[in-house]
């Protein structure tokens, strides 16, 4: 039977449980705090959304800027992302991942959509060549208050093989598809797919990304 039913009461139930948790248990992890804020945002609470903005606009803007580079365009896209988070808060499901993971996924998707739709592929090849991989890897972004995270990510990237690292960086920061990465690096497609996957496994383990 191809039958779908709307998100039913269990979504609402989850919401109300965490509201109680929030009241009874003031010490929340950052992830839990963001989930509670998303649930309030889903009910139209603009103050809760402002707190989400304060927690995540830096990562969102920084990631979009890393992909797009152009500051004006990056601001435009980052704003769109934050507004989309507001619009879609009703659909956020904490069982599927963290708020941060969700928000940055939206940001990344918007940024690469912009890259893929607005620019011809030749334009993109001029914009991000292979040479930029090395530069980007060594370049310390204008980081705000997150040195630990930056160092952790740099250390984890440093553990990857050169091919894993180049493939992951071209895909994620460059906005290239695995086919384009394969062309750019002159490495067979199957190898790229595998390197992206085992590269992520390595990064996941190095950074201790768990099932929280």
């Amino acid at each position, binding site marked *: *039977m*191809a*039958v*779908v*039913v709307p*998100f*039913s009461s269990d979504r609402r139930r989850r919401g109300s449980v965490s509201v109680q948790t929030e009241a009874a248990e003031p010490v929340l992890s950052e992830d839990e705090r963001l989930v509670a804020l998303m649930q309030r945002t889903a009910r*139209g609470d*603009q103050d809760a959304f*402002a707190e989400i*903005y*304060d927690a995540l606009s*830096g*990562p969102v*803007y*920084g*990631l979009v800027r*890393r992909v797009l580079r152009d*500051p004006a365009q990056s601001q435009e896209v*980052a*704003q769109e992302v934050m*507004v989309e988070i*507001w619009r*879609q*808060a*009703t*659909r956020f499901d904490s069982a599927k*991942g963290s708020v941060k*993971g969700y928000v*940055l*996924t939206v*940001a990344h998707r918007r940024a*690469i959509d912009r890259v893929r739709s607005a620019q011809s592929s030749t334009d993109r090849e001029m914009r991000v060549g292979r040479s930029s991989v090395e530069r980007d890897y060594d370049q310390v*972004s*204008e*980081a*705000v208050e*997150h040195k630990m*995270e*930056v160092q*952790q*990510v740099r250390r984890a990237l440093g553990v990857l093989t050169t091919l894993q690292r180049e493939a*992951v960086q071209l895909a*994620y*920061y460059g*906005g*290239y598809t*695995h086919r384009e990465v394969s062309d750019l690096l002159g490495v067979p497609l*199957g190898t790229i*797919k595998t390197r*992206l*996957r085992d590269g*992520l*496994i390595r*990064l*996941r383990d190095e*950074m201790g*990304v*768990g*099932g929280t």
Partner: protein
Amino acid sequence: MSENRETHMLTGAYALGAVDDIEAAKVRELLRTSPEAAAEVRLFTETAARLGEAEAMEPPPGMRAAVLAEIATTRQAPTVLAPKRASGNRFARLVSVAAAGLLVVAVGAGATALDFRDRMSEAQQANQATTQANEAMIEVLADPGRQLLDAEFAGGHATLVVSGDRVVVLGTDVEAPPEGKAYQLWMIPPTEGAAPIPSVTLTATGDGGFWGDTGGYAVGQALAVTVEPVGGSQQPTSDLVFVAGA
């Protein structure tokens, strides 16, 4: 090698946003059926987010005020449909809607983007309707919130994709309707006894392909197709060819 295994090898590229729309749709279908792949992608996504977070920069001044002003006047999206097993009640209601003068023929299950693509390549005619259908399908399949429905359709097969209020229907290997008739899409409100809402008639793409692309869908509605005079009707004049969904 099984198709699932092939698709599973794309989980890394998927989490990094390095797949095209069709591949993304294939991975999402895999995630619905494979808890193992879903768990893997979940952690990959969190891992990729760390790569993003490490790039954090102070946003430009003025952005906060601009965003907060915009959301104050922006309506939030309605809660999305989620695919779940039919509850007895729900199905009973659907049947009772259908039984009110209409006949349920068939509801299938589990359309995948892959099936869609296979069928498209068979039906791949170099005509405009096919191109439009293809493009519409790819657009809606790219929506992470979209829902896929599946039904038997006059000897062939229908895939229906719901993305927000938009519905794209694609029939393949479908028998042509009688001379002077067309297939028409209807949205059936969940309220018992409510009249079906007329929607578009489907366009033939040749070779048994029929498609339609429309807005106006509301959460909870079932989708159905009937045979109507060319141009469509305000009320169904035939039995349901199929009903799917909600």
